[in-house]
């Protein structure tokens, strides 16, 4: 699987990525084990295309640093954001790019270093964090 070496090369080493979300894989690739993926190159190719699209969109719409995790997760791709406004933009523009994040936002507290996950609840007027 060639899912590596596709993230922005200009990341500053001191960047503090405060926000983390997981973007779900495309429908065909969801809940696939590593074993299954080894037998299905077509799905892997789909995942690679998905990641390429994600990389392009992030470069286009995000203003500050971001990082797409290389490690494979069955639930999707973990994306770390430096800016909360970028994350907000990413969430509200999901329908435009036809993808879906897991309805959870994790943040790292800059004072305590605590990693905490909050639920994202969509509502007709927007969304709430609970």
């Amino acid at each position: 699987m060639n899912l590596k070496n596709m993230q922005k090369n200009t990341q500053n080493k001191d960047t503090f990525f405060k926000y983390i979300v997981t973007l779900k894989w495309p429908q065909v690739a969801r809940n696939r084990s590593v074993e299954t993926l080894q037998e299905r190159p077509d799905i892997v190719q789909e995942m690679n295309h998905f990641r390429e699209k994600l990389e392009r969109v992030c470069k286009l719409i995000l203003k500050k640093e971001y990082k797409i995790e290389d490690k494979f997760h069955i639930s999707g791709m973990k994306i770390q954001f430096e800016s909360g406004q970028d994350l907000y933009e990413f969430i509200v523009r999901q329908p435009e790019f036809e993808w879906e994040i897991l309805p959870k936002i994790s943040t790292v507290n800059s004072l305590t270093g605590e990693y905490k996950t909050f639920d994202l609840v969509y509502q007709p007027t927007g969304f709430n964090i609970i």
Partner: protein
Amino acid sequence: MKKYTHITLVGNVSIDYDYKGCDKLGDIVVSGDISMPLNAKFSITNSEPELQRMINNINLKNSTILTPLTLYKKYLFFNNVDYLPSFPDLQKLHIDIDRCSTQLLSLLCSIWCEYDKVFLFGYNIEDLNERELLIRTAANNPHVQIYYCRKPNANKIKLFDHLSNVSVMDFNEFKKYAEEHTE
């Protein structure tokens, strides 16, 4: 520079004081919104309208704004807003983090961050409840040296005499201390 050991706490009473010496001596924590340029490391609030003002306050641009978790969830997308840690003293003091004064939260936060010396400026002790909470907090944390700083005044304050870790210091004494302890 005594960063990480000395912290100046700007309380809820507005005072006419130049905090330059405090900035050189260590970190600064502000209780609520401020109207003067101050290089505050933290600013603390538990009021939503105040938080909105603080987010837009240019004087707090480089400060981390700390709020209770309930408020944080509403302003999560603002980079410089974060939530307060859970203070071990809360149960002992019987206070509600969403309703108590911001100066008390600043004090608890300074203690949580393990600063050795906390200098209180503009800390409201005229309110009897606030005074009592300050005394109890100091008594619960004897390892933290607290200095109540005030304008030079011939009348002595004897409120803290029974506490070995609380001293009263006037602005001139503080200035001298800051000069001696600043490289």
